[in-house]
């Protein structure tokens, strides 16, 4: 059987967070959750706040606030300045982020786009904290 795996890289400005082989990745793309398997069509998109799931023998989850994604030649590249590994994350910092986001969303001057992004951020954070 042919290998059904492809490489996934998450890179932040100061380091490469993870580089691994995987069979499936789920990303919170700007227009909705997106699952990526091997031989996906070439793709460029960006992320909204959410959770990246890398499925392997063990599932790995990362919380991201924003990012850019490129998939080409069976190489998934995720550029993000804010990614947190959920397996060892500080609960306190997450709840701080949550309360900050909740404070900001009540601001009336926000554009629809900002509101959209913030509401996703709040939802995701609430889900993690449960």
């Amino acid at each position, binding site marked *: 059987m042919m290998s059904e795996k492809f490489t996934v890289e998450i*890179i932040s*400005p*100061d380091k490469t967070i993870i580089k691994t082989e995987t069979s499936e990745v789920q990303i919170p*793309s700007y227009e909705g959750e997106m699952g990526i398997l091997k031989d996906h069509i*070439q*793709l460029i998109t960006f992320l909204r706040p959410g959770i990246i799931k890398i499925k392997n023998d063990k599932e790995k989850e990362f919380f991201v606030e924003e990012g*850019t994604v*490129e998939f*080409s030649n069976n190489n998934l590249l995720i550029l993000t300045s804010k990614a947190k590994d959920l397996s060892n994350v500080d609960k306190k910092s997450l709840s701080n982020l949550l309360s900050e986001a909740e404070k900001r969303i009540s601001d009336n001057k926000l554009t629809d786009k900002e509101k959209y992004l913030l509401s996703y951020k709040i939802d995701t954070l609430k889900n993690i904290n449960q």
Partner: protein
Amino acid sequence: MPSLDDLKKRIKSVKSTQKITKAMKMVAAAKLRKAQENAEKGRPYSQKMQNIILNLTKSINDIGNAPKLLVGTGQDKTYLCVVLTADRGLCGGFNSNICKLAKTNFQKILKEGKNLKIISVGSKGLDQIKREYGKYVIKKFSFKDKKQISFKEAEIIGTEIINLFKNNQFDKCILFYNNFKNVITQIPQAHQIIPAEIKSSESKNESSLSYEFEPEEDEILEDLLPKNISTQVFKAFLENAASEQGSRMTAMDNATRNAGDLVDKLTINYNRSRQASITKELIEIISGAESL
């Protein structure tokens, strides 16, 4: 001819200076390793970012409607120069090299009758620019109290630049920083970030298979380009940090060696004059004894 005592004092003071420069060199060497590591770790991000933008630009058909950050305002009246320097001195030609390059550029811009605006980052560069071009400086940044410069600081400057651009404050933006080649060589660079200079040399001849974009190309570019500005600034920061330590290390190494040479010379001088005074005393005693 200085007295023996004077020479002794001098030797002592040079020796203690040498100790200081040696210590500074060690510290710089340790910091250099870290800074270099950081610079290398940071490279993939900016490289890949460039790649994605390159791929995006290729698939844009209508250049007229492309985002202004990419193609520029179509004018080149006002230049914004961002000069990145260190906050600390004693690092050889590091700061002066950046300023020298920046100043030649300033001159050129002014000579052509164009407007000049300067943002300075780091206090040492500001000191050098202030005298001649002080009135053009519109914003100063200094991260002296930060031990390690992170992406946050780069973002602050990035947003500042973008805000100015959105308010039509300038047409072109140039970054000045030192590119870290190796420990001995750092190359001062003028890097234009707005409009983006896309290097098409590395493009693999029309291998740009059609990408699927979600949402549309323009929207992605709209989101990506501001990020790219911050990324470029951050990259310049990292290169600069590594260059600063490298430059300081070489400068302090030279200083240590020079101090060593000076100590040798002074010691010879000291021994000569000591011998001379002994000989003189001996002659005095002998001639005194003979006259009896």
